[in-house]
């Protein structure tokens, strides 16, 4: 019958297309062709790198972006006046050099010449001025205006010189000018919240924006006229893959070239010879720490002895072993080991449950009714640890702490709460007893926003309500001088006090665990990680996977 033949033909036709589509796959194998005899890899232009991300960017305008996915892209498309080099020192980016006046109040930036925006127009000090004015404009709904508002006066001295004056020497000032500079000629007069530049950015950076397919991928192309030299990798693709398991499968099959591994993936799923042939794993201390914070307004936690006791009752090594599979370091304070402000002399709290019980007894907590739980004035010692839902590591940390505290007689409940509700109902309203959260560790050691007693209003970051006059003084001391030795003195003492006061039990600093396809050369791990010299990464000619039509 005719109808059967037609449907068979249709099916055959579809199969034909299907298999021809498959052909494309086999042409680009995950394993590179046998290497040329020379072992020395020669830098070559070309190829593309595909990065995997769980979240999509939300905007490409530096003033408005607050999520990490947006910042990943912005970091490649824009530049600031300064940036951090491999050893975490501040070096010039768009600014070639700068002078700080003897009284520490004025910074004069000498800007690079010959830098062009991606649309060809020249970069000048007017752009810096515009960026500054945009950030402090009350109509701009940006979260990052604080540092810029400290400026007393900003002036364009000439096309390549920009000067700012502060009322007092302000140490974090220099680092604050690492903020992305935005193009005046494209944004002047535009409504910042509805400008098309949000979705089609124009910057000065090493990569030029090409396209953004919402929810799927963002594509950038190398900037041939970048002032540090054209990046070797011609194309950067940011693929959005919301599920970690899928992302790992894509990595293994060659669909993406780079991702951040979980500890389990790093330790247990990437050790076979096949994987090691095709990928290189890296490991360095990341720039964040996780902590257990106490609500210091809660009567249970008002007594320092109680907080110290809990610090003794927690086994940080166990947490690092269980949650990070050993891939991290215990945290003893708000700074990273290796940072110049880190105080090595502060001894961490060892795991000592006997000592914990002793301190609790001193504070009045004993198991009077012999039910396994400590009591005081008829009340059992119990509290809830809250953390945000969706973060497996924090949840596991809370459960390990729960078990340890049970052993010394404290009954703990764990609760995970959806992020928006968590912030609004619990943190902002200080409606919690203890929480497990994390902070990113800033490069500049100024900790005003988190530890100063003036920052305890609802919605501010000192939500544990920590108030210590000496700490306040030390923070100010550290902020308002450029002298590094003086700052170190203040921050050392600060860490000692935080250690004794235990407003947080600092838990751990996890390792960052990036993995990159083996064909990428030029990666040099350093204290700053591996990304600092991204524009110098390359793929030798014979290993290039994506042949791109120019």
């Amino acid at each position, binding site marked *: 019958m005719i109808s059967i033949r037609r449907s068979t033909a249709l099916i055959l036709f579809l199969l034909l297309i299907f298999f021809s589509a498959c052909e494309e796959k086999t042409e680009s194998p995950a394993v590179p062709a046998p290497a040329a005899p020379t072992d020395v890899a020669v830098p070559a232009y070309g190829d593309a790198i595909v990065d995997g991300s769980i979240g999509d960017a939300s905007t490409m305008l530096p003033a408005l972006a607050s999520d990490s996915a947006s910042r990943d892209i912005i970091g490649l498309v824009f530049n600031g006046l300064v940036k951090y080099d491999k050893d975490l020192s501040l070096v010039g980016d768009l600014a070639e050099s700068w002078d700080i006046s003897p009284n520490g109040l004025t910074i004069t930036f000498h800007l690079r010449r010959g830098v062009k925006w991606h649309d060809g127009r020249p970069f000048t000090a007017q752009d810096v001025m515009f960026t500054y004015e945009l950030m402090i404009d009350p109509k701009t709904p940006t979260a990052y205006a604080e540092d810029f508002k400290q400026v007393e006066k900003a002036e364009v001295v000439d096309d390549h010189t920009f000067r700012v004056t502060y009322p007092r020497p302000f140490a974090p000032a220099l680092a604050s000018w690492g903020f992305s500079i935005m193009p005046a000629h494209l944004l002047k007069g535009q409504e910042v919240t509805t400008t098309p530049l949000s979705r089609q950015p124009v910057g000065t950076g090493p990569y030029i924006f090409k396209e953004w397919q919402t929810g799927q991928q963002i594509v950038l192309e190398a900037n041939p006229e970048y002032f540090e030299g054209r990046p070797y990798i011609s194309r950067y693709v940011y693929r959005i893959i919301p599920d970690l*398991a899928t992302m790992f499968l894509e990595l293994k099959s060659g669909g993406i070239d780079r991702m951040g591994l979980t500890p*389990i993936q790093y330790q247990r*799923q990437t050790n076979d010879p096949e994987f090691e042939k095709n990928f290189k794993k890296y490991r360095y201390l990341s720039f964040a720490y996780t902590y257990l914070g106490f609500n210091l307004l809660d009567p249970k936690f008002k007594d320092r002895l109680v907080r110290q006791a809990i610090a003794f009752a927690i086994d940080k090594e166990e947490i690092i072993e269980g949650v990070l599979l050993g891939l991290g370091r215990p945290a003893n304070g708000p700074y990273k080991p290796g940072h110049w402000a880190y105080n090595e002399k502060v001894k961490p709290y060892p795991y000592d449950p006997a000592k914990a019980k002793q301190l609790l007894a001193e504070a009045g907590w004993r198991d009077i009714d012999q039910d396994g739980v400590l009591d005081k004035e008829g009340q059992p010692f119990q509290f809830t640890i809250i953390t945000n*839902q969706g973060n497996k590591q924090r*949840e596991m940390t809370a459960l390990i702490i729960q078990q340890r505290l049970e052993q010394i007689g404290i009954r703990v409940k764990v609760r995970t*709460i*959806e992020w928006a*509700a968590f912030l609004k109902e619990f943190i902002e309203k200080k409606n919690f007893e203890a929480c497990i959260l994390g902070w990113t560790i800033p490069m500049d050691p100024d900790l005003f926003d988190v530890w100063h007693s003036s920052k305890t209003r609802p919605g501010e970051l000192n939500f544990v309500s920590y108030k210590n006059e000496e700490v306040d003084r030390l923070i100010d001391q550290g902020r308002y001088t450029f002298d590094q030795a003086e700052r170190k003195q203040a921050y050392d003492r600060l860490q000692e006090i935080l250690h004794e006061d235990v407003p947080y039990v600092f838990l751990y600093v996890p390792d960052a665990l990036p993995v990159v396809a083996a064909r990428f050369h030029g990666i040099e791990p350093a204290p700053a990680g591996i990304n600092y010299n991204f524009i110098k990464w390359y793929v030798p000619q014979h290993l290039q996977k994506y042949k791109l039509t120019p």
Partner: protein
Amino acid sequence: MNRPGLYADFWRRLRRNRLALAGGLVVVSLFVVSFLAPWLAPYDPAYIDVSSVLEGPSKAHPFGTDPLGRDVLSRMIWGSRISLKVGFVAVGLATMIGIFFGAVAGYYGDWVDALIMRFVDLMLCFPAFFLILAVIAILEPSIWNIMIVIGVTGWMGVARLVRAEFLTLKNREFVLAARALGASDRRIIFAHILPNALAPVLVAATLGVAGAILTESALSFLGIGVQPPTPSWGNILTEGKDNISLAWWLSLYPGLAILVTVLGYNLLGEGIRDSLDPRLRV
């Protein structure tokens, strides 16, 4: 009334349906395992042991361990309680609400019926998921809140079924007789019509339990299921997801458990439907 005859007939037909019997066996086993959990589980399901993280099945841990070193077999056994609870409370609630609205709509008819049916339309316009999300955001995602939300968003099907039955049954002789004898509306609805209208409800309930179990695993996937450290099959399965090639035991066992249980409930429900339907007499 020929109730004894109806039941005997129902049992006879059900017993002949092998698939339904298999389903019934699964359901009964689930009950047994959940009740006996404290005695069956070899370990405390919440006991963390960081030295045995993600170990494969062994004599000490027949189903292996999870990322915190907890015994998976014990967690599976205790997890059956969540599956059971979710099924019964959520579906029980949905059924009761559905019976109420369906009965009232079917019995009184007219504007009461129209009003209730428009209300059903309104509820149907809400993606249940949206309501669940909103409620989870407002309240803590405890097992009870989840069950209540699933129940409150899933009664519409039952209501429709019950209403249809009532529309047909309310004009039968036995109802007219009861009314002639002066029985109150409430008595007629609950004592007379309802027992005869329950057949489709029973089917919907067993199918609903299956759906509720799947919903629980979906919520666990999104991280808004039961709170830690309570084990549920859904959250064990989700833990296994990111390491599916490594820790196959974390995916296989809860996945199979969910599959077999949901399958069992569905087969049982279908079997009950087939056995009750007079039109399907073979």
